């Protein structure tokens, strides 16, 4: 079942925002709401990794707002990816979300391998290649 990706966020190791992109169609959601959702998701992620013993990268559904669902994923280097989607009637399969997260991880690793991008710099990501890859992820899922 196709679902709409509303927002994709990448949060760094020290919980600093690296990249927050509003992918909703027609700008239905203001950018500020995306920032707010990503911020609250951080707390949920921290809670999940401290309580569950299992060391999995995909964290599943973190929480659900009125008509939005928030999924989380954490890498070994404590970089967190958040995907916010619109809730549809059919349940969203884990496999699909995992595939999306893997694509984002792919783009992130390509970004980190750039010797000119310093992962410790705490600055927002501004690479056009990364932008393009994320836009593809957002567009690819809602077809």
């Amino acid at each position, binding site marked *: 079942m196709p679902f709409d990706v509303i927002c994709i966020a990448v949060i760094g190791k020290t919980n600093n925002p690296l990249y927050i992109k509003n992918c909703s169609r027609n700008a239905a959601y203001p950018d500020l709401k995306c920032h707010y959702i990503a911020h609250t998701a951080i707390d949920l992620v921290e809670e999940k990794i401290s309580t569950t013993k299992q*060391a999995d990268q995909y964290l599943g559904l973190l929480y659900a707002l009125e008509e939005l669902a928030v999924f989380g994923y954490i890498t*070994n*280097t404590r970089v967190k990816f958040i995907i916010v989607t619109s809730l549809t009637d059919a349940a969203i399969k884990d496999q699909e979300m995992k595939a999306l997260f893997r694509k984002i991880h792919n783009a992130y*690793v390509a970004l*980190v391998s750039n010797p000119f991008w310093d*992962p410790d710099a705490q600055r927002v990501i501004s690479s056009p290649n990364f932008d393009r890859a994320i836009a593809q992820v957002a567009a690819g899922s809602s077809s």
Partner: protein
Amino acid sequence: MSFPAYHATVPVQSSPLQSVSRASSHGRRPPILERNLVKGRSNEVSLSAYAFLFCEMLSYATKKSSGIQDMEKKLSDFGYRVGIRSLELLVFRDRPNRRDTRLLNTLSFIHTNVWKTLFGRAADSLEKGTDNEDEYMISDNEPNVTKFIAVPKDMNQLSCGAFIGGIVEAVLYGCGFPAKVSAHSTGSDQFPLRTTILMKFDKSVLLREKGFEPR
């Protein structure tokens, strides 16, 4: 005669960002993260080319630094930059769906996977320090980065293994186990180039490990 699947025109891999943008043009090499995990001979960098580069790095470090400590710090910084990036790549390729939260798992990951990917073979030994709880050591009998380096007599305390130490420090820091890492040459008669990386972990790491143990 069999032709390689894609041409290996240049032995050194092109920068990954460049490859991603060329992904649409077919016939070229696929982007670095979508290649086969099993590396063929065409993906290896020649040791002599690498040794040449490392020589230059060393002479740059010697020119710019004022003493042995400073030089070791510079080499360690070089290694840090390599380690941070190779950690992300390695974790993405070799450890999907799993995170290393325990210290021992991470250490064995470094000892086998990281060493194998970077140097082509596993490290020689992983030991726990007997004097202190928080010290661990990884040794390599003949590290290929320093194989061709001869240290002059007056810089006897210098260990070019500081580069490897920097890589290990970056991997540990990235995985969430901050540690002070130093490299020492512990040459023996059998292996005169033997280098030991000493890792001294922060108190926070030990506390967390204690919390994991079953009560």
